[in-house]
């Protein structure tokens, strides 16, 4: 696709969790929990409230279409602030410092005084019904010439466990929201910028790692399309695909609009009919159990409602998303019928009843109540009308694979309300000047890799791999501890990767300093480096390090080894006499078999060589 010709414009919002000890507005730890460990639960209802200007935010209004009861899981690591049962603590100053560091890394200008706001979000992900957020700095620079418009310090939302159940462990973890200008023009641009921002964030060494700790929202439009915000892309590798698919969706929606125009299509609210009676005897389970089925005839829409607009998504899916806001499971439309238990005969009857012609599409909405069916069919009308004008401005969520579904209208400024419980924070010149900027990760990796090549003779590729390893501090510590650099680096980088692939919890082993103990044992000749992998695996399975070494690599001291070597040389005196120095190779195998891998081959070779020389000298 020629994105330039399409007029693709994209901007991103990156949300990155910060690795602070405490949450943004309370003193709870920022640890994520297994939901099975929850200590209690409670439930609440949320309501849309008016903004300072007396308006209700349109996105919030949309969420209010149905009464929703939200359930929250609590933990022994969450408190009354997460429960919305206590006013917030003052803004976490460590998180602010970190945010200022990031702002300075992008060359931004801080606000003179930070004001915490309440961003209305009533999808249940915040117990309060709002997310606390503060604008910290403006106007940063990107290498592609684009700008970072703002950086905000926000509290993380609660994690959805399932449906309307949320887990409070994540609520309140500090995160930075970095918003770029719409300065990207291809899906690849978006990927590159996101990758760069991610690198800068990691350079602080103070951001959370792992799936879900960084999320990208993308704002996309094409010429004559509309701004669409896609939320929650968790994998960087999917970003370009999401952008490409959204560009495609907007292009197809514009094409559908043109066809609808050409056909003189229209949406007429007077063409809603109650068709409940037509389906009294239907085989479709959904229609049969419905209390009311409403139908709307859309003149000129036939064939277009069923048209694919991005992989796995049709105009019908878009209409269905709107109807679902009323709590219905979806809609039926004549472009896809007969199907789902609806017979050809029933389709003919509905079309006749609705006086639908060949070029018209009939959409059915079945509700568990009359109110629900009416709400759903009105939503169908809302979305069908939008099809006549092209692309609606929307907030959308990513589906598996990179297509998207409608979430809610784009929120407006009406969703911001001052957080009266938090005192503004002054960011004066003194504070800003004291912020130090860490070395960029890319620069650091180059520098360290060059040092490894020069100091330890690593090859360049391995040096870069070691320098970019998340375990670099462990490797550096092991080297400082006197471990052979090659042994330290290869063990920690390679063995860790290998074991992680096998599903072994390597982080736990590292946190217990198993790596250092193993490396020390190898260096001291207590075990052979050949046994490292197996010893790690045993320790991971719950065996103590000592037992693992004993079992897999029994301790053989240098003295023991000398005795063993002398014994073997004595037993094979004839062979030694015959082969002279050439006996070394074959005897190496014999000794290694005897010590069962518990001694480093180098040490065996060294001792064997020395003892062999002694024997040969004596013989002379």
């Amino acid at each position, binding site marked *: 696709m020629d994105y330039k010709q399409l007029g693709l414009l994209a901007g991103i919002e990156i949300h990155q969790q910060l690795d602070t000890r405490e949450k943004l507005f309370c003193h709870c730890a920022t640890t994520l929990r297994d939901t099975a460990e929850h200590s209690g639960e*409670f*439930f*609440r*209802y*949320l*309501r*849309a*409230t*008016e903004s*300072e*200007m*007396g*308006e209700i935010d349109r996105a*919030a209004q949309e969420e209010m279409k149905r*009464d929703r*009861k939200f359930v929250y899981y609590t933990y022994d690591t969450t408190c*009354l602030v997460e*429960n*919305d*049962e*206590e*006013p917030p603590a003052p803004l976490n100053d460590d998180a602010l410092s970190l945010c200022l560091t990031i702002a300075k890394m992008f060359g931004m200008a801080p*606000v*003179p*005084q*930070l*004001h915490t*706001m*309440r*961003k*209305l979000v*009533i999808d249940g992900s915040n*117990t*309060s*019904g*709002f997310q606390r*957020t*503060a*604008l910290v700095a403006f106007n940063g620079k990107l290498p592609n010439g684009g700008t970072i418009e*703002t950086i*905000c310090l926000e509290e993380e939302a609660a994690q959805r466990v399932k449906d309307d159940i949320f887990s409070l462990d994540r609520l309140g973890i500090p995160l930075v929201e970095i918003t770029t200008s719409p300065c990207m023009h291809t899906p690849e641009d978006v990927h590159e910028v996101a990758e760069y921002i991610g690198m800068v964030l990691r350079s602080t060494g103070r951001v959370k790692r792992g799936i879900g700790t960084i999320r990208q929202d993308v704002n996309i439009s094409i010429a004559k399309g509309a701004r669409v915000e896609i939320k929650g892309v968790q994998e960087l590798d999917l970003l370009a695909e999401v952008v490409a698919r959204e560009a495609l969706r907007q292009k197809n929606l514009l094409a559908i609009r043109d066809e609808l125009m050409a056909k003189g299509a229209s949406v007429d609210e007077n063409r809603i009919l109650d068709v409940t009676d037509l389906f009294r005897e239907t085989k479709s389970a959904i229609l049969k159990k419905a209390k009311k089925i409403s139908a709307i005839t859309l003149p000129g829409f036939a064939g277009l409602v069923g048209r694919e607009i991005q992989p796995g998504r049709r105009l019908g899916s878009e209409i269905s998303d709107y109807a679902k806001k009323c709590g219905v499971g979806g809609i039926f439309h004549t472009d896809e019928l007969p199907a789902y238990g609806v017979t050809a005969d029933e389709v003919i009857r509905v079309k006749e009843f609705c006086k639908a012609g060949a070029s018209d599409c009939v959409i059915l909405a079945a509700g568990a109540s009359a109110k629900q069916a009416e709400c759903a069919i009105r939503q169908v009308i809302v979305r069908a009308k939008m099809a006549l004008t092209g692309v609606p401005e929307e907030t959308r969520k990513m589906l598996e694979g990179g297509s998207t579904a409608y979430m809610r209208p784009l929120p*407006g*400024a*009406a*969703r*911001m*309300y*001052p957080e*009266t419980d938090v005192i*503004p924070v*002054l960011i004066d010149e003194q504070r800003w000047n004291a912020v130090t900027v860490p070395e960029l990760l890319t620069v650091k990796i180059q520098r360290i890799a060059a040092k490894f090549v020069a100091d330890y003779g690593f090859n360049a590729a391995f040096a870069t791999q070691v320098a970019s390893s998340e375990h670099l501090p462990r490797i550096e510590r092991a080297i400082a501890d006197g471990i052979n650099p090659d042994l330290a680096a290869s063990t920690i980088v390679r063995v860790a990767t290998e074991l992680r692939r096998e599903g072994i919890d390597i982080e736990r082993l590292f946190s217990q300093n198993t790596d250092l103990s193993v490396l020390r044992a190898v260096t001291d000749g207590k075990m052979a480096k050949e046994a490292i992998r197996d010893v790690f695996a045993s320790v991971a399975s719950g065996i103590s390090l000592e037992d693992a070494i004993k079992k897999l690599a029994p301790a053989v001291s240098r003295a023991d080894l000398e005795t063993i070597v002398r014994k073997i040389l004595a037993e094979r005196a004839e062979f030694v006499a015959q082969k002279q120095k050439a006996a070394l190779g074959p005897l190496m195998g014999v000794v290694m078999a005897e010590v069962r891998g518990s001694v480093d081959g180098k040490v065996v070779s060294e001792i064997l060589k020395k003892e062999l020389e002694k024997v040969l000298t004596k013989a002379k």
Partner: protein
Amino acid sequence: MAVVKLASGYNIGVPHAHCTLLAKAQPAQAVHRAAIVQDKNLPELAIISTGGTIASRIDYRTGAVTSQFDAEDILTAIPDLAKVARYRAKQLYTILSENMTPAIWQELARAVHAEIQRGVTGVIVTHGTDTMAYSASALSFMVKTPVPVVFVGSQRSADRPSSDNAMNAACAAAAATSDLGEVAIVMHATTNDDRCAIHRGTRVRKMHTSRRDAFSSIGIPPVGFVEYPSRAVTLSPDAIRRGEQKPGLHDKLEERCGLVQFYPGMGEMVIDAFEGYKGLVIAGTGLGHTSTHLIPAITALIESGTLVVMTSQCLNGRVCDRVYDTGRDLLKAGVVEGGDMLPETALVKMMWVLGNENDYDKAAALMQQDLAGEYNRRSGHGL
């Protein structure tokens, strides 16, 4: 700092010196609201506001901190209410509840009594939560009511989507149209949005600074519950029923009454400071004690004509000054045992009793009688 609202909705603070006046902002048009239609077939409730946050919000259009308050404002904020009743709203005060005074309680009592006389089905009083229990207690003594008089407030401000105001108000309205016939506080019973408790006005206390279920009945179970969202009301057998009491207003209070909490090492000058007061409630330790050291000062106070009533800072349980020497000495000094009355209720009751009874002995006797459900003759063991 000047607060600047950006187009994105964010506020930032900018030093005044860095700001240049380009033009004055035009006041925004008031947002048109759909008119609230009150259902004429529903029972009529009076809502009397004393300045609680139940329907307030920041209003940048007028620049006022608290917006005007009429039935429409409440019904706009809490649309659920329109399903329960129709309303007449009266704004008595707009003050924070810590600024309440006995004089305001009296004015409130008169306003409530006037509504009862008008024949409303029930009265709702919106009130800040800090001193709501004092006010409810005061009205319990001053107003005899055949209809429910329900105090309600919110622990989380009305301007947040999670506010407890809507549910509390809906439950209060349900209680105010129920078979109840006494002064009560209706607030969240649990941290869930599942039910509100109906607490007797003289046996209730705010027991948490911030939780939704901050209010507890002490010494008795709540006199009822309101389920949410069904708004189904259940009353305990002990709840006074609609129509049991004849309407009446006895709005005299003696304001020269005090309440002091004893603490180890408390000096006699604290007691001396109440010289000239008509009455003093002491929240003593345990069964109702002060240190022996204070007894001469207390004796002197009583001899000068001050009525001294002993309650317990344990809150739960009954005072008994006959068990230990100190207690017996206090009784000898003329201290009146306050039974299982809450210290705050005892204070309010003392104001009412001394406002209506000049005779010292009769007043002392009244302090030991149950007048408004404040004094249990028996201590139920709660099992």
